[in-house]
């Protein structure tokens, strides 16, 4: 039957043939079914933003998703900044566009890079990422796997300051600490302070430093050979522009007779959506066309890495090199309790099934 199918596909390569035609199985309709199901189910995506205060992260996120994720935001004063440690703030918003629902979670990391001594500044962030993996692993190993919520971080926008000369020691240290856990997309913030030449120089410098320190950033997959030329060209352009240098704004400014989103300066208007002014559109395109890929890489690479490491450690969460025996004991007890609960649940379920299937006898195991 394979040969007939093959012959059939060679005769009518890409069009949908009449279902009445003999030899047509119909599984070519699968992608449509997947598409419909996905649209119904909606998409989930978790994006983390990391960078020093004042680099325009919140503005950029609001600009990307045309929303206000931080309606009651209060920027802390100087005294508070001195006291503060890194926080994790996750905001979820449901966006719908043409019937397609996206449940977007943005994880913000206020306090990163603020302190005079930033040595411990990324511990909180790494714990958060690991926690999401841990939770997913736990859910995946559980009994009811139908409604696993995926809160794993699919992508991290790392904001690089345009005021320096490339990566700072903190940037390098942080990216190296998370490049095996999450897809890193480096972004040059507040790009309207750079001339074209400065931008090119900075991008090249950053790429060189990324290579020098063996930092693994997210690489866009090459376009497949069967894609059309436009898509291939777009992918080429995107790849050549990394790291993206962006400007964010949700203010409407009048420029050249029309209203555009931008920033008004005495010397001109920076248009957010003008590709000659900055890479905002490229960043948005990349995010949207590669959302699926970002999720896949998170699942197939980062999560699997985490999972195998975790299971190799024998289910023991080792935080320091010196393992506390008491702690192991406590954890083992907790594990035991969990196992017992699981068994109890399984028994209860089996009982219910028995009761449901066997209408006559309400008692388990007794046969008349």
């Amino acid at each position, binding site marked *: 039957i394979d040969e007939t199918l093959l012959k059939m596909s060679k005769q009518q390569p890409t069009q949908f043939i009449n279902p009445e035609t003999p030899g047509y199985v119909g599984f070519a309709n699968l992608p449509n079914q997947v598409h419909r199901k996905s649209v119904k189910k909606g998409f989930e995506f978790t994006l983390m933003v990391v960078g*020093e205060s004042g680099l325009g992260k919140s503005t950029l996120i609001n600009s990307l998703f045309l929303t206000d994720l931080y309606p009651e935001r209060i920027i802390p004063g100087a*005294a508070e900044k*001195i006291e503060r440690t890194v926080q994790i703030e996750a905001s979820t918003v449901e966006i719908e566009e043409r019937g397609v629902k996206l449940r977007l979670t943005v994880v913000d990391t206020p306090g990163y890079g*603020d302190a005079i001594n930033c040595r411990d500044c990324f511990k909180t962030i790494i714990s958060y990422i690991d926690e999401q993996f841990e939770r997913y692993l736990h859910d995946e190993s559980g009994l009811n796997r139908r409604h696993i919520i995926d809160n794993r971080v699919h992508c991290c926008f790392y904001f690089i300051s345009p005021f320096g000369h490339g990566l700072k020691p903190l940037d390098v240290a942080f990216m190296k600490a998370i490049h095996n856990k999450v897809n890193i997309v480096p972004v040059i913030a507040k790009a309207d302070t750079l001339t*074209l030449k400065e931008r090119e120089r900075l991008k090249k410098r950053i790429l060189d430093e990324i290579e020098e320190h063996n930092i693994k950033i997210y690489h866009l997959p090459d376009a497949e050979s069967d894609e059309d030329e436009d898509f291939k060209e777009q992918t080429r352009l995107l790849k050549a522009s990394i790291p993206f240098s962006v400007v964010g704004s949700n203010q409407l400014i009048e420029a050249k007779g029309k209203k555009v989103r931008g920033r008004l*300066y005495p*010397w001109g208007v920076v248009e957010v959506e*003008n590709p000659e*002014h900055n890479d905002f559109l490229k960043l948005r395109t990349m995010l949207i066309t590669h959302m699926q890929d970002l999720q896949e890489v998170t699942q197939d690479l980062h999560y699997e890495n985490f999972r195998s490491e975790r299971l190799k450690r024998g289910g023991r969460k080792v935080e320091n090199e010196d393992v506390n025996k008491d702690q192991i004991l406590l954890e083992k007890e907790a594990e035991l309790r969990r196992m017992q609960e699981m068994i109890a649940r399984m028994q209860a379920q089996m009982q219910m099934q028995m009761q449901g299937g066997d209408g006559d006898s309400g008692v388990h195991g007794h046969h008349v």
Partner: protein
Amino acid sequence: MDPLRQSPSPCSSRPSSPRTPPCETLGYVGIEAVLDQLKIKAMKMGFEFNIMVVVIEEKGVKLKLTVTDTPGFGDQINNDKCWDPILGYINEQYERYLQEEILITRQRHIPDTRMHCCVYFVPPTGHCLRPLDIEFLQRLCRVVNVVPVIARADSLTLEEREAFRSRIQHNLRTHCIDVYPQKCFDEDINDRILNSKIRRGQPFHLIPCLQDRIPFAVVGADQEHLVNGRCVLGRKTKWGIVEVENMAHCEFPLLRDLLIRSHLQDLKDITHNVHYENYRVYRLNESHVLPRGPGWVNLAPAPTDPPATPGPWKVRRRAHDSSDEEC
């Protein structure tokens, strides 16, 4: 202090660049600028000092300008005490001067390598001062004239700039940071008026008010572009040209006027009469040369211990003044 009357005497302890001719009066240096670059490695902090010396002449007035740059400041992951090498360097210059001054046979004119002004660049986050800025400014304002500026101001719109500026001013007040021109050093009513004009922030030569323009929002450029037939210093982008000397674009002219055209001498005077004197009194007290009396100044030692809370300071004017003034 008159540059024309400066006699040469390069400090023996400073490593000399091969291009500096050994001992000569400035008058023989010549019209063209002499650019020397000395690199001095700061103490283990991971950043160096770049010291550049240039002699400029304009309309017969010669100025020997020394610019000390601190590339790498604040770039490390742990920036704790990153201000120590800078404080150390400043105090070292005071020390050098003091050593010359207390000699029995001393030169007619003591070579002045003291820091007359420190320009502190605040990054344009748009929020408020960072913890690092506050720590640094608190310490440095007690030993040197500090002029904070909002750097790379071309990344802030005019509203963002004003909001940022007022927040910074609030921060400075809250943390008792007295930047130049310091309110407490206004010697008389004329000074007070003049300086409050600067503090109130209006173009100097245009008068009346210059208040609350500090910190100035500046943009720097070294390239010239053609704008409306004029050749201007600026930064060219796809959406326009930022003209550095255009008051509508940024406040570079205010900074230039303050530093060079109007307050150059005052910066030197305050350094000599106030900061240096404070240092001198502290050192003399430390070495128990002076008996503790009404003139004794309680100043935390500058380089090593950070002051717990920056307190008000008494100022002792020059030794031959008859009266002590307090601020």
